[in-house]
């Protein structure tokens, strides 16, 4: 009889190592820092050339919009909110994955987040910048946009704090600021790592300024870890509140199709869904270009796909629930809005949304498909498309046939609607490329902390 109990295998508890290839601490520093330190790759110039051209197109169109007014968009009455608001909700939603990864997964001790949190947070910042542009230029008289902020003024007027549009300013503004603070907090130790490696004087100076003289002493780490925990705790309700507040822009109105209580959770689930699709898209490209397959492993991507599967089904449930309530609620206008949504002039948009958001994620039930890079890349792109269409369906299909049939109209975007949306991708990717070039794109100090030899109970330390 065997006396050994060590042979018992527990496949359920068996976890793949988070970072493959068992790198040393130095190898982690070298790999990640080298990306920002090496000579600029030629492809980077090509990529930023394209994206910054699109960004300039956006800026030019904004100037024209300020000159001419929002009539250059395809808006009409009754469709007073068009692509600009669709784009706003789309971009804010994208941002949510970054905060979920940096805050909620941190509180749940999901250590796999360490490989992706840095660039997911960067993505959040850039997506929120893109988002803030659209309502900002939608106000018409953009030169008085500061009236939205409660500032004492010569008119002795104050903004209306009972308006969801004002809540939105505070929610999204806070979201951006807190995400920026969180992101910078995470960067301090990594910038110090790069400071100590810097060869040229100018690099040392710039990195020295931004790393604030960080020395990595435990007396510093002690407060640092507390600050990180507090920021995670403060950001966690933000993940849930920001898109809830965005949804109240719609839900507090009396428009059939908007006026429902399901909106806040439905919007939050959709935001996380679309955000993870965007993180996944960016992660797949970035790991390939910079050879980070050992840091962002298939295991990481698979976990993100599982989150997409879950949130995709929440979104699907919300679609179904909305229909049920429209029927069960017995309100004629509400019923009409939903039948019109699925079978009216915008049915093509509705079914695009259903296919991309409800059907596509179902492929992730299969282990083979959710661990296949090409499959998940295409799925993530389709989900992004679907989530843009979700916002389009909510905004446009609810508005275009309002209470009075004589005012019904069909909304079509103009070249400026399309150009500004494409341009916002230019802005997003320009910012993202600058980030990839100059900042450590993976949180080195956090990745080192999840290596097996970092464990203070690990026998023998370095292997």
């Amino acid at each position, binding site marked *: 009889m065997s006396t050994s109990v060590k042979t018992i295998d527990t496949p359920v508890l068996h976890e793949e190592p988070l970072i493959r290839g068992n790198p*040393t*601490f*130095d190898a982690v*520093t070298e790999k990640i820092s080298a990306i920002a330190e090496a000579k600029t790759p030629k492809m980077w110039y090509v990529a930023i050339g394209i994206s910054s051209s699109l960004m300039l197109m956006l800026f030019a169109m904004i100037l024209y919009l300020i000159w001419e007014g929002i009539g250059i968009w395809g808006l009409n009455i009754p469709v007073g909110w068009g692509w600009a608001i669709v784009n706003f909700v789309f971009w804010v939603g994208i941002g949510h994955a970054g905060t979920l990864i940096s805050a909620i997964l941190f509180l749940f001790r999901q250590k796999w987040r360490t490989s992706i949190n840095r660039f997911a947070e960067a993505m959040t910042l850039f997506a929120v910048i893109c988002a803030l542009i659209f309502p900002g230029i939608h106000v018409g008289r953009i030169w008085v946009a500061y009236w939205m902020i409660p500032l004492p003024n010569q008119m*002795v*007027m*104050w*903004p*209306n*704090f*009972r*308006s969801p549009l004002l*809540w939105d300013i*505070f*929610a999204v*503004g*806070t979201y951006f*600021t*807190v995400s920026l*603070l969180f992101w910078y*907090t995470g960067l301090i*130790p990594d910038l110090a*790592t790069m400071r*100590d*490696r810097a060869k040229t004087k100018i690099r040392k100076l710039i990195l020295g300024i931004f790393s*604030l*003289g*960080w*020395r*990595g*002493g*435990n*007396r*510093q*780490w*002690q*407060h*640092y*870890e*507390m*600050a990180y925990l*507090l*920021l995670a705790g*403060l*950001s966690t*309700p*933000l993940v849930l*509140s920001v898109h809830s507040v965005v949804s*109240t822009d719609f839900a507090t109105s009396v428009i059939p199709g908007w006026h429902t209580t399901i909106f806040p959770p439905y919007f939050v689930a959709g935001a996380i869904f679309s955000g993870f699709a965007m993180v996944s898209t960016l992660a797949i490209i970035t790991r390939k270009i910079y050879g980070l397959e050992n840091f962002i492993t298939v295991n990481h991507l698979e976990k993100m796909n599982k989150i997409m599967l879950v949130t995709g089904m929440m979104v699907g449930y919300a679609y179904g629930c909305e229909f049920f309530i429209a029927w069960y609620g017995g309100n004629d206008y509400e019923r009409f809005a939903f039948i019109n949504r699925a079978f009216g002039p915008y049915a093509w948009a509705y079914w695009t949304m259903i296919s991309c958001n409800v059907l596509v994620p179902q492929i992730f039930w299969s282990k083979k498909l959710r661990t296949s890079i090409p499959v998940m890349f295409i799925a993530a792109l389709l989900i992004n498309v679907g989530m843009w269409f979700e916002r389009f369906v909510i905004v446009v299909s609810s508005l275009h046939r309002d209470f009075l049939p004589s005012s019904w109209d069909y909304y079509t975007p103009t070249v400026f609607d399309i150009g500004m949306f494409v341009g916002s991708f230019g802005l997003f990717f320009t910012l993202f490329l600058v980030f990839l070039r100059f900042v450590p794109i993976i949180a*080195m*100090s956090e990745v*080192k902390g999840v290596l097996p*030899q*970092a*464990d*203070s109970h*690990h026998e*023998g*330390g*370095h292997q």
Partner: protein
Amino acid sequence: MNKMHSKGGVMLAEFENPVKLLEAAQKLRDAGYKNFDCHSSFPIHGMDQAMGLKRSPLGYIVFVIAMLGLLGGITLEWWTSTIDYPLVISGKPFFSYQAYGPVAFAIMVLSGAFVALFGMLALNKLPMYYHKLFNSRNFERAMNDGFFVSIDAADPNFDQKNTGKWLEEIGGKNIEMVEAE
């Protein structure tokens, strides 16, 4: 507390890995050292107890400021909407705590987050662009893969000869005295 700005130098010793550094911290604590620190490129689990550090007070600071932010937000909303500029909008009450929620919450989170970062920096006395430890070439590896103990010469237990020898006994390598320039 950590009086790293005192006159005199800092003794720096390198340890092989996080486990060794943790053991060294316990020994330093037990030997009664106060002005020492353990440097690593990532926070080491259990190091706070090993060094005998008290819990960071940052949580309390952030809580107080966040609550003040919440109160300030509600006060701003109440004063502007009911005292200074009361405006009837679709028959809603001037003071509507439900409608005041989102903005007050946002101000609370915002003030808490600012204090979390800047409070952490203040507790760590950062930014501090000059520190004598930066005079050590070897210390440049602290944020890469080095694990260091630094003992300030101002520590009452510090004795240049014996402390160095003792650090070597407990596994320290590359022991050097870093002087302020």
